[in-house]
């Protein structure tokens, strides 16, 4: 038999031609890109002179979007790996509270409190993952249980230890700590000062800080968000582990048979999600100086929504980190933009629902074209 068999020219005449442009446009992020353009166009038209696009306004929605991004990256990778984490919000509350209890109540050094909290939370993420893997239960149920359990402890601990459910004073104890600024600090204050001087950034006109630039540095929150997005994107698309994430979510059985360590991948992703939640919590605690038992409520849904708006498939195996980041951006811009535009704030939820639905329908259409799903 000859080594190279004649190629079976597969079904050429049976496939209608598709334009190159259309081919090029069809990518998982397309929904996110279209949505982002639409949202910015909308607010440019209807809220341009509300201050939404001056330096302060930009910083405003950037920070909100950055928050969403941090948890969206974790949720995105986990969702692509075929699982869900409904305990993200409770984990945020729990992590913040742990840092506060360790540093304020127990008086440990802040850096130690932060590191131990990271260790505890990542371990809890691993427990989540371990239960899901071992019992084969849907992660919806397992993490729903953790949603309740963690929130319960977040209320119970400070209540019994400190007799309060908001613990403040973290800024005081964090003074001079080497790790705290990594989460709560701002980068390049000098640069922004200079921006203020040359007029790129506005300066305060009244109040205690008149003359200073309105934006006096790049908050670490945004830096973390960007770092996590880049990390997640590279991990997913450029490494072998990324291929395993897709495989684990696409078909765990098939992946396992092909030698992908599915259990390890999924548990690691649960841990990464917990890591992201803890970054979120630590940034928040360091910025606001207090931890409350009600922090992080409903954040799990917001993360999932951002990821889904960004084109990921709820059932796993498909999605992109860039898309999720754009989803978070859309989410943040819409939320803040409605305030700038002066829309009755109780309608925000209605808008959110409608945008979610619209984005998902668009994404589904795009995905069907890409994957040839039926």
């Amino acid at each position, binding site marked *: 038999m000859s080594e190279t068999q004649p190629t079976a020219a597969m079904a050429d005449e049976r496939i209608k031609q598709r334009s190159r442009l259309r081919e090029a446009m069809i990518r998982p992020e397309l929904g996110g890109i279209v949505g982002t353009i639409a949202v910015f166009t909308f607010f440019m038209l209807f809220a341009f002179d509300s201050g939404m696009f001056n330096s302060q306004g930009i910083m*405003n929605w950037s920070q*909100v979007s950055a928050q969403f991004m941090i948890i969206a990256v974790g949720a995105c990778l986990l969702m692509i790996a075929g699982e869900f984490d409904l305990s993200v919000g409770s984990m945020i509350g729990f992590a913040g509270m742990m840092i506060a209890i360790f540093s304020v109540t127990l008086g440990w050094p802040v850096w130690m409190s932060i590191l131990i909290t990271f260790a505890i939370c990542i371990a809890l993420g691993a427990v989540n993952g371990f239960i899901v893997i071992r019992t084969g239960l849907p992660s919806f149920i397992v993490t729903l249980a953790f949603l309740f359990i963690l*929130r319960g402890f977040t209320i119970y601990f400070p209540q019994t230890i400190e007799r*309060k459910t908001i613990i403040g004073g973290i800024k005081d104890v964090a003074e001079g700590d080497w790790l705290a600024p990594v989460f709560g600090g701002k980068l390049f204050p000098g640069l922004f000062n200079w921006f203020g001087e040359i007029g790129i950034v506005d300066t305060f006109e*009244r109040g205690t800080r008149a003359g200073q630039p309105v934006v006096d540095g790049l908050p670490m*929150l945004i830096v973390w968000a960007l770092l996590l997005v880049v990390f997640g994107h590279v991990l997913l698309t450029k490494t072998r582990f990324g291929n395993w994430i897709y495989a684990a979510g696409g078909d765990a059985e098939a992946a396992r048979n092909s030698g992908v360590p599915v259990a390890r991948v999924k548990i690691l992703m649960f841990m990464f999600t917990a890591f992201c939640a803890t970054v979120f919590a630590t940034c928040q605690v360091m910025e606001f100086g207090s931890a*409350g038992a*009600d922090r992080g409520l409903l954040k799990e849904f917001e993360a999932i929504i951002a990821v889904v708006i960004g084109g990921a498939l709820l059932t796993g195996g498909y999605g992109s980190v860039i898309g999720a980041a754009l989803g978070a951006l859309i989410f943040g811009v819409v939320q*803040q933009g409605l305030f700038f535009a002066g829309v009755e704030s109780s309608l925000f939820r209605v808008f959110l629902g409608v945008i979610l639905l619209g984005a998902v329908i668009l994404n589904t259409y795009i995905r069907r074209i890409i994957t040839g799903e039926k």
Partner: protein
Amino acid sequence: DGHASQKYILVSHAPDSDSWWNTIKNGIALAGDQMGVEVEYRNPPTGDLADMARIIEQAAASGPNGIITTLADYDVLSGPIKDAVASGVDVIIMNSGTPDQAREVGALMYVGQPEYDAGYAAGLRAKGDGVGSFLCVNHYINSPSSTQRCQGFADGLGIDLGNQMIDSGQDPAEIKNKVQAYLSANPNTDAVLTLGPTSADPTLLALDENGMAGDIYFGTFDLGDEIVKGIKAGVINWGIDQQPFLQAYLPVVVLTNYHRYGVLPGNNINSGPGFVTADGLEKVEAFAGEYR
């Protein structure tokens, strides 16, 4: 001597993550210790008032000597409270509701701060200070008492509430940025009103960041660590202290003495509104979030 046999249950309407109610928990705990009676704190986990009605029924069924409860919604809660009273449990209304409603459901007395009135008083005070427009940062818009506070403030100022109340949600970063967004879209706002530590703490930071701290008129309901610091720093003009400690502590004391010795004050007790300003802050500072 049988004194420890009294048992009192306090039912609140707050979801269990609401930090302000912590002072209440501490108040009844302390009163319970001091009076040598058994006290319990109950609340609907999500803040659903219909669930709260069931908790009052449940509390009545467990046969305590008295129930201390809020009257967050007369329609929902009056039935269960009347039933409790009829089944022989003494009731004191605290925190929300009005003295009239308390009488109507058959409660012994009312201890608290009528929300609308408190807002109204704050509004009058702000009007005296020259405020003509404001932003009400509502972090629990689902609950009626929050709206009453904002509405009262607007009425006290003599202006329409309109769009000046925002649904801020409970995430501090979102609250902070929403406040900033509102203030930059409406730069002529004279005053900010927050409804408790949850909205006040991020608002403090927001004002600090956008440079309006100390410049814009800032009033808040309910105290907390950061609020006290804000008052001290002159960023917050006043905090309305309804003295939740008293709302929890006094009913236990009153009920215990009533059940032991048959004595009862002849009138309702208004625990607030008391305006906390930069003067005389030390005690407040020491116990904010715990007993204040």
